[in-house]
Structure formats: C-alpha cells, structure tokens
C-alpha cells in the first residue's frame, strides 16, 4: 500500500507542473500584451497595469516568470483580487462553502444512485427498470445552468420550498436545492454501475448459497446483494466529488452561493482576467489533489488496484 501511495504521489508531480505550466503558457506567452488580453474590451489603469507586471514578473524571461509564479503558488502569494482582498483570504472564506455544497451534492448523488440502481437491478428488463434508465438519461442531458434555472424558477420561486438565492447565509438548509439539482443531473452513471453490479451479484454463488440456507430476500437483498454492489458506486461518487470541486461555477453563480465557483463566476462576468487565472489554477490544483485521494480510496476498497 505504501508503495502504491508513493508511486501515485510521484506520478502527480509531472501532472502538477504540466497543468500549471499549460495554464500559465496559455495566458502569458500569447502574442501581444497578456495583461491587455486578460482585460478584454476594458483597459486597466496604469497603477493596476504596473502592479500586474510586477506580480507576474513580466519583465523577466518566460520560463523565469513561470518559476516565480510557482514559487508564489507554493508560498500562497497569489496577489489580490479586484476588491483589494488577497486571493488567500478569498479562498479561505469561499472554500468551506463550496466543500459543504459539494459534500451535500455527492451524498444526494450517492443515495439516488444506490436506491434507484438497486430497484433497477432487481427489476432488470422490466418496465420500471426501463423507465428508471430513461428518466436518468433525460436528467443527465440537462446542462447544469439550465437545470439550475429550472430548479430556481419552478421549485424555489414557484413552490417556495427553498430560498431563491442563498446569499451570505450558506447553510445545509438553504443549499439543499442546488445540491439536489447537481445530484439529479449526475446520478445516472452511479445508478448504472449499481444496476450492473446488482444484476451480477444476483446470479453470484454466494447469493444462491444465502437463499439455499433458507434466508428470505428481505435479508439477502440488503445484506448480500446491495452491500457488495455499493463499491463501484462509492468510487464513482468519490470521482464526481473531484469533478464538482472544480465545477460549481455556474451553480454558485445562479444561486448566489458565496463559494469558490461564485468568485470565478463573478470574475468571468466582470471580465477580471487575473482573478480568473488565479482561481482556475487553484481549482485545477484542488482537482488534482482530490483525484489523488480518490485513487487512494480505490486502492483501499479494491486491493487488486495496488498491484496493477
């Protein structure tokens, strides 16, 4: 196990430098003035311009710029956002909110995938199974931002079951609607994994043995079939956790949730290039870290992985 952990960590090093280099390269080695490009139609005033030249060390050669940028990333010195707060401070405030939202979303996703997958697997081929699959596929085809607007308009505004926007008061009870909406557009993959492994384990020897011992399906289904089928669903849920950490921009923007996604959303809407670059870099690093943890979880749950 230790060997596996070490190898996985070593593999992450080139990936870390590769992704950050790629991002940095895309922004700062384009022809023309990178700072003007980052501001699009707007022109920053001279003071902002000069402070950015200094922050990104644009008077140095490109590779030196990148290395200095890496040093800043490691020492947590990523400059300030447009409101004058340091990126660190903004991150520290926003990250717990995103973490809460994503945790809630993956819990919903897991429950939906496990329960509906179990039902579908037990009734494979029947009408309710087909119906389940089609509904999941339709929900999966709704783009996140559309799903958020629909949830906001029909459930929050129409039925009044949840706050229309979350605002500063980001708690479990105000964020359930966006979290559930995320889960509804995602659970199809986990549900299929659950369905597949339920079908497989229903035909497995240990299930036949359990029935042969005289156990009823009331006991066999939860204990023997469902529990063993959950492993792929757990790993899939963990993987979507990583994807969501980096992918709540639209959700947080529409529901006004003060997380990292909202910071990025505001920066995009406001055309604040440097903030976009800082937070995309942070989110990418988070994504890489979460994916390492997910891989380690795989190895814990499925010992075969460690020897591949």
């Amino acid at each position, binding site marked *: 196990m230790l060997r596996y952990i070490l190898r996985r960590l070593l*593999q992450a090093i*080139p*990936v870390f430098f*590769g*992704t950050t280099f*790629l*991002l940095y390269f*895309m*922004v700062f080695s*384009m022809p023309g003035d*990178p700072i003007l*490009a*980052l501001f*699009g*139609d707007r022109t920053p005033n001279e003071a902002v311009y000069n402070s950015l030249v200094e922050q990104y060390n644009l008077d140095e050669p490109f590779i030196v710029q990148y290395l200095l940028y890496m040093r800043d990333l490691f020492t947590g010195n990523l400059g300030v956002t447009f409101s004058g707060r340091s990126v660190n401070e903004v991150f520290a405030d926003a990250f717990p909110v995103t973490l809460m939202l994503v945790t809630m979303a993956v819990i919903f996703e897991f429950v939906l995938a496990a329960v509906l997958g179990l039902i579908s697997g037990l009734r494979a081929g029947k009408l309710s199974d087909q119906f389940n699959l*089609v509904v999941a*596929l*339709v929900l*999966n*085809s*709704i*783009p*996140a*931002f*559309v799903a958020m*607007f*629909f949830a*906001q*308009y029909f459930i929050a*505004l129409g039925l009044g079951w949840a706050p*229309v926007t979350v605002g500063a008061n980001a708690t479990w009870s105000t964020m359930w609607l966006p979290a559930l909406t995320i889960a509804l557009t995602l659970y199809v993959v986990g549900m299929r994994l659950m369905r597949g492994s339920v079908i497989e384990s229903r035909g497995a020897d240990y299930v036949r043995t359990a029935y042969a011992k005289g156990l009823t399906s009331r006991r066999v289904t939860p204990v023997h079939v469902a529990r063993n089928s959950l492993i792929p669903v757990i790993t899939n849920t963990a993987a979507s956790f990583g*994807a969501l950490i*980096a*992918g709540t*921009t*639209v959700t947080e*923007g529409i529901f006004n949730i003060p997380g990292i996604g909202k910071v*990025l*959303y505001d920066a*995009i*809407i406001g*055309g604040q*290039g440097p903030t*976009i*670059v800082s937070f*995309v870099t942070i*989110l*990418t690093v988070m*994504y*890489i870290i979460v*994916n390492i943890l997910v891989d380690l979880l795989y190895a814990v749950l499925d010992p075969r992985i460690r020897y591949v």
Partner: protein
Amino acid sequence: MSDKNPHYVAPIEESDQTEIDQVKLSERKSTLWLDAWRDLRRRPLFYVALVIVIFIVAMSVFPSWFTDIDPYATDSADLSKSNGPAEPGHPLGFTRQGQDIWARIVYGASTSLSVGLITVAITAILGVPMGAIAGFFGGWVDSLLSRIGDIFFSLPYFLAAVVVMTVLSDYRNVWVISVAIGGFAWATLARIVRAEVLQVKQQEYVQASTSLGRSRMGTLINHVLPNSITPAIAYLTLALGAAIVAEATLSFLGIGLPNSIMSWGNEISQASITVRTDPLPLIYPSLALIITVLAFTILGELLRDALDPKARARR
C-alpha cells in the same frame, strides 16, 4: 429389438448435427457494423433520436424552411413586443428585445451543431493518433504520450476553455470556441483508444500482418485501428452533446460567442435577466438544448451497446 447394431444415438445423417455443421452461403453475411445496424433497428429510442438529429441538421442547413423571419436582419426586433406572448406567425412569442423566439432557436441550431462537429473533429484528430500510437508502440513512446495525456486529463476542460476564451476575447467565434473545448477534451478519448489498441494488438491477425512484412505503421492503420475504433465512435457521439453544452455554458457566462452570433447559450443568458417575471424566453431555448443533447446522448449510448458484441450478448 432384433437389430444387431442398435443406435443409441441417431445416425449423424438423421440428426440435426449436419444442419449445424453446414455453412450456408446463402445466409446474410454478418459484420460488426451490420450486426450493430440490425440491433439498432430494433430499438424504438434509436428512431426517436435519429428523427431529432435529422431535424436539427435540417434546421442548421436550411433554416429558412422552418421560419420566414431572419433573426440576423436589423429590423427583426420590435421592442413594443418585449417578452410578448405567442401570436400567429410567432409560435413561441418574443424575447426581451422583441425578437421572435422560434426564429432565433432555428438559427441557433447551426451554431450548436457546428461547434459540436468541429469540437468532435478536433478531439478525434488529437485523441485517436495519441491513443493509438501510445498503445501500439508501447515503451517510451507510450510513457511520453501517456504523461502528456495525463496533464490534459487533469486539467478540467471547462476551466481550461474559460481561460482560453478569456485570453482570446478579441477572437470569439465558432472555430476558436471549438478549439478551446476540443483542445482539452481529447485526453479521455486517447485513453479509450489506447486501452482498446492494447487489446487488439495481441490478436493473431495483427501478428500475421507484421510477419507478412507489413510495416508497423501500416499494420496499425490497416488492421489495428479499424478494429479498435468502435468505442471511440460511441464516445465521440456523446462528446458531441457535451461540446454543445460547453459552448452554451461559455456563451451563457458571456465568454463564449458574441451576441451577434445566434446561440442557444446566448439566448438563455439574455433571457435569464428577466427569468423571474418572464420564464418562457429562457425555457424554449433551454428545451431546444436539452432535446438536442438528449438525442446525441441516446444515439451515443445505443451505438456503444450495439457496437460491443459482448454487451449485446449480455442483454
């Protein structure tokens, strides 16, 4: 029982064994694609998806068949009808700017479809060779290409596209946005192709090809690739839907296509300002987006099943 030589088993010419052993030349030939086609023809969902896709393609190529209004015309907006209800000739009502919603949806189809197709082409051009060469040649080539793939795989492609579109804010068009999406989405495809090539290259016919003197590259292109491309085709169909979503999301955020280009994402973005009082201008383009993505998703799913003989046998 007077027979001296009793048969406990029917003699071979009386059994149906001969039937089984005989090769019927008259029977229809079967290939992977023919099998897949026969499989697809039996699925009602396939026809639903196909009709939608044909409809969208027709809308993209001949938008004037579907509406008399040209939303690109300067006099197409009538502010007095801002967010107005449906009326004869305007089946879905009007946008906030008083433009005909149906016409804008019809003309937006070609944008979505173009972005989808160009993105998928870029994904395939980058992903298939990367995966195929890595899997087939192995060794340091594989290590190098797979590490490059890992880097792109670890960069969430939507975030990368956000950065590209921010930097290239002066050049926002269908081609740039497709490159921004496809340029970062190919790594998954490369992994799929590589895994399939790794399996196929073990087959005897691949060894036969190289031992008959065909070059490694020739073997890869003529024997390995055709036999390992089917999962890629299914994946690309799904990716087409995902690319349409990515374009709409970027346009919704205001860093996709400029408003001068008809795009469902732009329509939704415009309508979102007044969604709480007038939801219909947002709901209609959203439905267009959902139906289109759903059609490509269903098509991709059915293709994946139909092109995988093992999955077919399991069903």
